[in-house]
Every structure is written in structure tokens, then in C-alpha cells.
């Protein structure tokens, strides 16, 4: 992977896993600052583009949503393999949030039955075609892949997104490593 300083423009992606798309709505709330972002970076993947496969050599990916189904897991792994910096974007990616409410019900089947069979307004059949299979639990992104930066909020406000993006883009275009504390303190060990 080439150093970001060799390139005039940064490559930024966004991704939508198990979330409601609210974080992407908040991203759009950046309004005219999106032009400033475009001065520095290309948006190379995400629901706001029409690209189908995750590209190579991405500098920064903002990932919305928990990892809740097989497609999410596959995309999360592709993102990690091809991104220099991965940011958990919003509470569903950071904690599982609303997407993970089903975890307390046990197996995903319990939630599916509750929604599709017990719910009076639905046909009483479980969806099986097209939809990806659910994982046993919905998990925060960092339980699946290594995450470099966390941007909490449900959704994070546009101001918060802008502040984070400016810091991240500055670090990336200067070739600076991210500060260690962004990943959190080292694990504690017993006995010292």
C-alpha cells in the first residue's frame, strides 16, 4: 500500500452494516462541508456511491451498523483488509445498540418468530429468499475486526463527524500514525 502523502487525494469509503442508516443521514447533514471534503478526498464506496465491491487501497472507512448477518461479516472483513484506518461510525457499530436488542432473546430464530409469526400484520412466514442469514448475535464492529477509531452517537452529529474527519484526514495526509490512546489503554493484567 502506498503512503498517503504520495497521492494528491485521499480515498474515503463509508459502509452500512446492521444500522438504520441514520449515521449516513447525519453524514449528509454535513451539507456544504461535503464540498470541502470533496476537495481533499474521493468517496470510493458506500451507500452514497453505486460501487458494488469494496475497492482496494482505501485510506479511511466509516462503518455504520452492528455486525448482525453474514453479509455484514463478509463486508467487515473486506473493509479491514483494504482500509488503512477503520472507524466505528455511530452507536450500532460501537456497541451493537438497537440492532443488538435481539441478543437478549437468545437465538435469532426467537426474534424472527416474534417479528414475522407473532406479529398480527405480517403474513406469518419467515423470509428466506434474498435476505442474508443472521449471525447468532449482533456484535459491535470491534468484536469482528480491529477498529482504529470510535465515533459514538446515535447518530453522531454532523459537527462531531466533521471534527473527527478533519483530524483523521489531517493525520492521514501527513502520514502520521494515529495516537495510541484512540485505540484505548493497554489491557490490564492481574498482579501488577
Amino acid at each position: 500500500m502506498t503512503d498517503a502523502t504520495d497521492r494528491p487525494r485521499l480515498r474515503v469509503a463509508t459502509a452500512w452494516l446492521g444500522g438504520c442508516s441514520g449515521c449516513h443521514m447525519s453524514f449528509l447533514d454535513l451539507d456544504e462541508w461535503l464540498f470541502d471534503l470533496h476537495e481533499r478526498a474521493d468517496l470510493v464506496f458506500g451507500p452514497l456511491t453505486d460501487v458494488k465491491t469494496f475497492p482496494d487501497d482505501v485510506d479511511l472507512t466509516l462503518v455504520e451498523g452492528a455486525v448482525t448477518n453474514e453479509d455484514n461479516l463478509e463486508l467487515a472483513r473486506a473493509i479491514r483488509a483494504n482500509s488503512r484506518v477503520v472507524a466505528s461510525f455511530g452507536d450500532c457499530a460501537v456497541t451493537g445498540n438497537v440492532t443488538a436488542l435481539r441478543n437478549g432473546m437468545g437465538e435469532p430464530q426467537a426474534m424472527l418468530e416474534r417479528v414475522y409469526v407473532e406479529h398480527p400484520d405480517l403474513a406469518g412466514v419467515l423470509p428466506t429468499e434474498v435476505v442474508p442469514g443472521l449471525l447468532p448475535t449482533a456484535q459491535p464492529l470491534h468484536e469482528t475486526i480491529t477498529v482504529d477509531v470510535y465515533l459514538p452517537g446515535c447518530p453522531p452529529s454532523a459537527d462531531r463527524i466533521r471534527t473527527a474527519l478533519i483530524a483523521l484526514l489531517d493525520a492521514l495526509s501527513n502520514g502520521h500514525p494515529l495516537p495510541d490512546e484512540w485505540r484505548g489503554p493497554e489491557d490490564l493484567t492481574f498482579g501488577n
Partner: protein
Amino acid sequence: MSLVPPRSGGPRPNVPVVLDGEEVSAYEGETILALARRVGTDIPTLCYLDGLSIHGGCRLCMVEVAGDSRLPLACATPVTAEMEIRTDTTALRNHRRRVIELLFAEGNHICATCVSSGACELQDLAATNGVDHIHYALEFPRTDVDATHPKYVLDRERCVLCTRCVRVCDEVEGAHVWDIAHRGNSSTLVAELGKPWGEASSCTWCGKCVLVCPTGALSFKGRSTGEMRHDPDVIEFLTRLRDEGEWVDRQEVSS
């Protein structure tokens, strides 16, 4: 132990202590927390509440004391002469961060659907102590909501077992509706040894437990996401006036 500073005319602080490198004078028997608050040093707390007995359960207020390899609790440790106390070291910051993470990991703290979001002591602790994610595996426990009381709701998903409600109901209201049942991860808040709250005949509907709860676990019925505001400071006011035999208008006191 009262942490309210003695009134003017009483004894003066005369116990020499070193707090974060500064020499300060403490009152005899004063806790490290009371001293720190009096001189304007912030120590994070959760279970401690002015006006209630000391529980010492959350461990957030731990500090370093020279010559002591343990981390004493500021809320429960009286100062002694020449004590050298540190309240803000890298180790302490990391420990506190881990404690806060564990509190999140053992509950279902879905802030996006919480009545107290935006006015929650746990959320504030996370923000002020740099907890931007929980690196422990989340438990996602299956807990329940008790909405049987006509005026209040208990959402056990958000209870951090601080026992403020237990203490205020017992010590201030004198009703003792609440207790913590079971042990370890199974610990849970129960009314009248396990009855639905609405059937607990000892509850006087005073609402003090709801006012002191630091999270969205106890709330006024009918509050929606982000609408709940607690008022834990009212307990110190009540107990102080009760101790001093003064029942005057709250506005007069604060003006």
C-alpha cells in the same frame, strides 16, 4: 459520616495532607472525597451521594495513597495526618475507564432508547473518562422492566446496582422497599423481597428513589427517550434541613 463542612465558628481544618502535590488542611475525620470536593479537586463517583450512608460499591473514586499498595476509596477513607494522595494518575485513569466499561458491559445500556439519555451519570462518566467503546465482550443480559407501579418504572437493563435507591428509601424515607437480591452477575434490584413494585404496600409513592437514580433505571412513568431528569442533590438538602431542624423554602437557601 457527614461530609457537609462544619459551620463557621466550628473547628478549623488542621490535619495536614498532600493532595496531588499541594499541601492542604483537612478536618479531623474528613474523607478524602469530602476534602477533595472542598478544595475543588474532581474525583469521579457513582454510588456515593451526599445525604446517604457510604456504600463503597462502584470503586470509581479510588485514589493512590503513598505507602499503600491498594487503591483506597476516596468516599470511604478518612484522611490521616501527612497522607499523600494522588487522584489523577495514568494508572487511576485506566482503572476508572475499565470500571466504567464493565458497568456498560454487564447491562443493556442502549442510550438511543433510554429515558435518561443526555442527563445520565453513567453516560457523563463515560464521556469525561474517555470511554468511547467497551472492549470487554458485552453480556447482553435478559432482564425485565417493572412498570407495575402507577407512577414510576424500573428498567433493570439500566441498573448499575449503586444502591442509592435502596439507601434513600431505607434511610431517608424510612420505608425500605428495595434490596439487592442474589449474588454476582445475578444481582438484581427487588421490591419487597421480590414483589412487583406496584404490589409493594410499603412504598409511600414518595419518588425519592427515582430522584436519586444515576441512570435511566428508575423513571417517572410516561417519560420517553431523553425526557427523564433526576434530582439527586435534593437528598442532601432534605437530610441537612432535617439534621438542623430547619424547614425553609429551598429557594431561600440557594439564594
